[in-house]
């Protein structure tokens, strides 16, 4: 009994300290942060498209919370974690899920240098920085740019008009459904960018490393280690903004070594996205994407490596009832070329989605009320 009272008191003290930050006598610290975004989505799709179908084509709902917390016990050293929970029949996968999305420690003594270790987003590409629903002008994510996270370390920084990033990641850049689930190994990745004028940034990034795993047999791997079969990705990106118009574009060239095949399997993917603010609360946006991406899989001892050509477009708009609230309505259509991999459905589908996003700051809610 006494123990439970003490434990309860300790818990209360812990909660108080967590909310109030460490005592002021401890210098050079920056307190605690807890923020997030709650999304509610309504979907209506057809059931024909691999990419777009949700809820078996019936009108369906989805709820999502993406929340992150950060604490800075020492100056410029921030420990953080991001967790995502999702539920509802409109999920791509059935059921509900809560998972650890990202986390680790970040050391950022200056604009020129930030070091982050833990579960990190990929270095290649730039869409991961805009995947939060309040930053994505549309509801969908480009099929070729779904964010993937792996364990590793990365550095970022900018000096003058130049910026850089680089890291070592434990996984290859995985295109689920196109390439096998990768095993863990070291993947170096680098990125460079230049911002010649404030409205324009041009960037390039690349990574290389094994993309298969030890799940394959020696026969399938033709007697070699799975680590000898590598993925190489070279990507470019551009961001242009002027006045009320923003344009983002990315392109990536991917090359895969395929067991038993002398030639590499290559793919090319790109998207172009624009957003125009019509009035303070209202914007319109559009995105076009084309993926000429290799499907690579083992069927018995043999490997298939065919390109699957998918194009899709999404148009829509967003309305901001308040600064932290965003409502989006979009329509997306896709089309898969009929000469794609033999087992692929020759699908073309559509999706209409309505999304309500509410950003929140948990500590402000506690201290000030809703």
């Amino acid at each position, binding site marked *: 009994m006494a123990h439970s009272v003490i434990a309860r008191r300790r818990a209360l003290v812990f909660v108080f300290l967590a909310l109030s930050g460490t005592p002021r006598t401890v210098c050079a610290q920056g*307190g605690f942060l807890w923020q997030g975004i709650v999304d509610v989505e309504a979907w209506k799709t057809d059931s024909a498209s691999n990419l777009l179908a949700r809820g078996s084509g019936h009108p369906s709902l989805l709820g999502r919370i993406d929340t992150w917390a950060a604490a800075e016990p020492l100056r410029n050293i921030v420990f953080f974690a991001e967790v995502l929970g999702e539920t509802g029949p409109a999920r791509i996968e059935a059921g509900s899920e809560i998972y650890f999305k990202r986390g680790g420690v970040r050391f950022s003594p200056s604009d020129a240098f*930030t070091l982050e270790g833990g579960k990190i987003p990929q270095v290649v590409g730039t869409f991961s*920085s805009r995947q939060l629903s309040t930053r994505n002008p549309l509801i969908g994510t480009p099929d070729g740019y779904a964010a993937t996270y792996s364990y590793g370390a990365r550095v970022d920084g900018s000096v003058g008009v130049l910026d850089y990033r680089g890291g070592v990641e434990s996984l290859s850049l995985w295109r689920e459904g196109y390439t096998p689930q990768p095993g863990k190994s070291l993947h170096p990745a680098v990125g460079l*960018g230049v911002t010649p*004028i404030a409205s324009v940034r041009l960037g390039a990034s690349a990574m290389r490393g094994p993309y298969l795993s030890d799940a394959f047999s020696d026969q399938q791997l033709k007697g070699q280690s799975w680590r000898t079969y590598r993925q190489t990705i070279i990507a470019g990106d551009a961001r242009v903004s002027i006045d009320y118009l923003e344009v983002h574009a990315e392109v990536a060239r991917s090359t895969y070594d395929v067991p038993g095949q002398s030639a590499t399997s290559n793919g090319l993917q790109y998207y172009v996205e624009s957003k125009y603010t019509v009035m303070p609360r209202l914007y319109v946006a559009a995105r076009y994407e084309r993926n000429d991406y290799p499907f690579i899989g083992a069927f018995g001892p043999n490997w298939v490596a065919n390109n699957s050509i998918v194009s899709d477009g999404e148009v829509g708009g967003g309305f901001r009832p308040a600064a932290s609230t965003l409502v989006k309505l979009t329509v997306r259509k896709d089309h898969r070329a009929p000469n794609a991999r033999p087992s692929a459905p020759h699908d073309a589908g559509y999706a209409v989605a309505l999304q309500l996003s509410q950003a929140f700051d948990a500590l402000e809610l506690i201290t000030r009320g809703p």
Partner: protein
Amino acid sequence: MRPLRLRSAPRIRNPGTRVALPLVLALSAGAPLLVAGHRSHPPAVGRIEGQVLLSTALTTRRPRFRIYTDPGPGARPPAHEADEMRNVVLYLQRAAVPDDARGERANITQRDEQFVPHVVTVLRGTTVDFPNDDEVFHNVFSLSSAKTFDLGRYPKGSSRSVVFDRSGVIQVFCHIHSDMSAVVLVLDNPFFAVPAENGRYAIEGIPPGEYTVVGWHERIKPVTRTIRIVAGETARLDFNIPIPPASEDGR
């Protein structure tokens, strides 16, 4: 930051009296003590002076952290300004407005990815400029009911302006840098002051009468006090503002 200066000796729109008021109301962050200074006090006005104390509540200190950032300049959040005393405003509620009271232009600069100053108090009808001093684009906007605007993206050296023609609290943000924020407090009368760093403040040139004085900070429910102003006298009024403290290292 230049002080808000009334263009000429304004007249008070007060039944039965027309009193000349030479007022100079200093405004916001740059001014150490916002005092309605003038060459000579007409005897028919009084003044308020006092001390503002900031008491601490549950802290909302923030790490210098953005979970996702676009690559390129501006990926790291700025250090936050800590002087919360500059974000406090004392003003009279429902005071008579001098006939020709006009606020001069004010400005909120975008510098080091912050709005400087964080809080600007202006008289209704004042134009506020939003110059960009940063190497990166900013996109200033507000969705507040008292004023909704979106200034679009503009680079260093450019400025855009907004006329605040309705009183109220206008929260200002940047579309590109979500942790940038500022507040424009638009008032119906020119009787307001921002305390000095030591917390002292004064509001001068107030016509005699009974007033409600408001102690305002963006993160609290306004604190109100009632006070009687007598011509030629100074009324003393202290405020205790319960706001979250700033961190010790300037963030």
